[in-house]
């Protein structure tokens, strides 16, 4: 009999402590599979952020470091420049990457640090209990905008890939999602590419993954998947925004008309 699936060696075999329906588990598995398939697990150092995925240091089966809120790309810079033979990835949420850590995100991209950034965008602060994120949608409720996010009070959400696409140093930018099996496969392809770019010395790669947070969205997992297609994708269209070989590419799926 042929074995068609197994536990990836890039992931520690232990239960994840994320909420039911959380998207982190899917992306964790994708990263774990990539570490194995690319044969880089033993020379990879991962960075766990502050936020729900703070415990990522327990889950990825490679050397890990947990650092201050938002500073993943700076920490990655320090590791990569000290040990260029290592593969370094930073795993971050939207508050970590696009709010408190925006300067580190932008400048590590501008320097084109040869690192891989996995960016989980679920439009909410999870760990602290559902506060407004820099990617929270207009009208979306959060515990610090209980009547829904308004432009007047909170300004506009940030599209990270589009923002970084302006930088010469941002060599690979792709926004993906995990709301269907087909999208999971696409997300894995993108994340694998982001690691491959680093192996090839291509410079800064970032993959944004639209992810669900049923707990803090106050929706069931099924409703949450619908929220991704109906609300998130119009604001955050999926697609490749930069590749090492070409400038900004056109968005391919979703997107407001």
């Amino acid at each position, binding site marked *: 009999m042929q074995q068609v699936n197994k536990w990836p060696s890039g992931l*520690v075999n232990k239960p994840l402590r994320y909420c039911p329906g959380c998207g982190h588990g899917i992306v964790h598995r994708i990263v774990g599979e990539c570490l194995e398939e690319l044969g880089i*697990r*033993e*020379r990879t*150092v991962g*960075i*766990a952020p502050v936020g729900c995925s*703070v415990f990522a*240091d*327990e889950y990825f*089966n*490679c*050397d*890990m*470091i*947990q*650092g*201050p809120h938002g*500073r993943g790309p*700076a*920490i*990655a*810079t*320090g*590791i*990569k*420049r*000290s*040990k260029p*033979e*290592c593969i370094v990835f930073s795993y971050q949420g939207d508050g970590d990457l696009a709010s408190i850590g925006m*300067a*580190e995100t*932008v*400048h590590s991209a501008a320097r084109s640090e040869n690192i891989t950034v996995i960016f989980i965008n679920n439009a909410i602060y999870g760990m602290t209990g559902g506060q407004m994120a820099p990617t929270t949608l207009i009208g979306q409720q959060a515990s610090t905008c209980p009547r829904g996010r308004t432009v007047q009070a909170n300004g506009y959400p940030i599209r990270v890939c589009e923002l970084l696409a302006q930088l010469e140093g941002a060599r690979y930018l792709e926004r993906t999602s995990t709301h269907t099996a087909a999208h999971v496969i696409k997300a894995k392809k993108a994340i694998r590419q982001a690691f491959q770019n680093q192996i090839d010395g291509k410079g800064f790669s970032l993959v944004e993954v639209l992810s669900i947070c049923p707990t803090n969205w106050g929706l069931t997992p099924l409703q949450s998947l619908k929220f991704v297609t109906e609300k998130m994708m119009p604001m955050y269209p999926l697609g490749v925004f930069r590749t090492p070989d070409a400038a900004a590419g056109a968005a391919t799926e979703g997107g407001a008309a």
Partner: protein
Amino acid sequence: MGEKILMKGNEALAEGAIRAGCRFFSGYPITPQNEVPEYMSWRLPDEGGTFIQAESEVAAINMIYGAAATGIRAMTSSSSPGISLKQEGISYCAGADLPFFYANVVRGGPGLGNIAAAQGDYNQSVRGGGHGDYRVIVMAPNSVDEMGNFPKLCFELAEKYRMPAMVLADGILGQMMEPIEFKFERVDPAKLPAKDWALGNSAGRAKRVVKSYDLREGELEKINLRRMAAYRKIEQDEVRFEAKNCEGADLVVVAYGTSSRIAAGAIKLARDKGLKVGLFRPITLWPFPKKQLAGLAGKAKKLLVVEMSMGQFVDDVRLAVNGAIAVDLYARPAGIPSAEEVMAEIEKACQGIKAAPAATAAAPKQRGRPKGSKNKKTKAKRTVRKRAARKQAKRGRKGGRR
């Protein structure tokens, strides 16, 4: 080794760090320490090292956090406001038991303050500085020679105890030029022992994790208790100080860094006048030379603390002697005293010794002794304290004109 060269303090610090095996530097420009990153940007690439001008002090310290986690000798430097920004990252390094070296070339504060020398970051340095319960090893040079030779000590102590170690300098020490002799062989980083906690290349071993958190019940306290025991050992073993003419001195001036240089000049003037004055200079500000200072109590009659801050350093001196000897303070917060001014303070303090000999010889305050026999002395001591307080208040008022 051996050769004497003329160098600027900041450059000596940078060169000393490179010779000590530093191969990673990240920093952000701020006066009066700019020569450190400038020198590093010129020298480090030639040594196969990395220099990064970070986008902020916050990014710089987190690059250090990452670099130090790979076991490389990593350094950052800044001046007061920049060090404040780095405190969160320093706390993370302390919490993750990562060794690294940093320098604070202190300027006047608070806030943006000025760019002249000051000692206002004393408490921030010796009390940890960031959030949480931790210490960093603090070395206080008072010459360009020490600026160049202390980085190696800092790296060694940092690695021995797996914690941050720093040089607390100031604008004068950073900017002045003096002859320096590097008193150690160049360190070849490749020959340093491998660290059994460093990240990267996990082939053939279990994964390693560098982190500063532990949410499990009771676990964080266990880690902190282990760290506390290490701190106790450091306080036992790693104290460094310099005592000059303290034997037979009536008055001992206690000062560190630039203040101690000025005090040394003043003491020379005082001794020329026949006053019996010595100098006690802590070289490690943490660990603080508590025992050695307490040992002066039975010998000298008074201590005079000279510091370029409001009275931060004096607190540690007073804690060390625990009331066993009178401690006067000459405070110049963001001011730089001349040797003559310090000399005048020395003379004043010496007059005090003649006026109230009983008080200066007083034993430490002891509880549970019969009161009657001690009444006289206690009264005299109180009078002196009051007088000292009045004097200090007067000095405070005068402070504005200085």
